[in-house]
């Protein structure tokens, strides 16, 4: 999962100056502990933000826990701009699941419905796990609820795609030939597969 650590740190600093360790703890509690962060990552990110003039520090030249960071006016502007910039969703990701289903369609005799069901069951099982987390979460843990919901909606959209693929494939005459072939004994399967070429 991609998350912008620099901007999350800037957001935490809008509440006032903070130490590095404190920033890490607050980051984890605000993101519902879905996105853990190690302390080294926090300090290298803060150094980079400081070089860019988005934060400034006090507490001496030494790197370490005694150093306190505050956001600059440039940092405020950068954060405001980032919040309104949509993430890149325009170029479709090379989805491994989509590729598997497309490949299954080309494999003679492959039971595509069974392939779809394996993936569907796996996704629903994952969703059951996320839902348990949501069920146990208290209502004031809004960050956790939202982070879990984001994951549930994402997985749900994949299940819906599988359902939709399933009904398209059932309706498709080409898939019907493939189904007939997969149900047939092997010699006929070969002939059918050959006839399609």
């Amino acid at each position, binding site marked *: 999962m991609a998350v912008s650590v620099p901007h999350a740190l800037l957001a935490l600093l809008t509440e006032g100056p903070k130490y590095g360790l404190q920033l890490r703890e607050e980051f984890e509690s605000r993101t519902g*502990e*879905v996105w*853990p962060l*190690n302390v080294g990552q926090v300090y290298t990110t803060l150094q980079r933000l400081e070089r860019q003039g988005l934060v400034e520090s006090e507490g001496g030249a030494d790197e370490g826990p005694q150093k306190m960071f505050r956001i600059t006016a440039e940092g405020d502007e950068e954060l405001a701009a980032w919040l309104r910039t949509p993430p890149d969703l325009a170029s479709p990701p090379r989805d491994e699941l989509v590729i598997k289903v497309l490949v299954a369609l080309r494999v003679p005799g492959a039971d595509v*419905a069974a392939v779809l*069901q394996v993936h*569907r*069951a*796996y*996704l*629903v*099982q*994952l*969703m*059951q*796990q*996320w*839902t*348990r*987390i949501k*069920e146990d979460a208290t209502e004031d843990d809004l960050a956790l609820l939202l982070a879990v919901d984001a994951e*549930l*909606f994402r*997985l*749900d959209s994949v*299940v*819906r795609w599988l*359902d939709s693929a*399933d*009904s398209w494939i059932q309706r498709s005459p080409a898939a019907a030939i493939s189904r007939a072939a997969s149900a047939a004994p092997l010699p006929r399967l070969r002939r059918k597969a050959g006839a399609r070429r």
Partner: protein
Amino acid sequence: MTALELRNVSKVYGDRAAEVHALREVSLTVEPGALVAVMGPSGSGKSTMLTIAGSLEEATGGEVFVAGRSLATLSRNERARLRRRSIGFVFQDFNLLAGLTAAENVALPLELDGLQARAARKAALRALDELGLGSRAARFPEELSGGERQRVAIARAVVGERRLLLADEPSGALDSVNAEAVMRLVRTACRGEVAGVVATHDAQLASWADRVVFLRDGRMVDQTSPLPGPESLLTPSDRK
């Protein structure tokens, strides 16, 4: 004792020329306290499975047991009594009676079962209260929001000594927050002695269940339960 058991249940509609196999040898066991979701596309047999489990329809093959009793051995009257006392139904369109208040709707099945009006009303108010609707008890269905109406329907389904809750697309046309609230209530209702079966095409709703079974062309093709330790999802491997 299992709350519900289907043994090789089949259902065929129509005659030989135009036979439709709605269910083909489906077997399912639901223990008390469990919530099972039935997923599948429309026409896969989900609703038929619920109506047969709820004795609203008879199977053409196999056996159905509710609270340990085989439906086939019961007379028509005994089945009707079992439906009134032990089984609660929640439908997509709520099916509340427009001329009755929320409390009267919930009390109705108890009164039909011979309970005195005062006792039925008391039980209904308690059920509404548990679902956070105590203050809406005197309202008519048209005065309630969609989410509230569905909560009344759930109260009606669990009131009294019901042992089996059957819900067919219980969140109907509700938005996702209200739909989730409905599933939380169903989840909460299915504890202790009460078991539930929910038919839905929605994976988010199904994921509230202990077990999800998948139907396809009337056959049960697969089932899944959550892996133990959901917390493992919160600890990415690079941090273990």
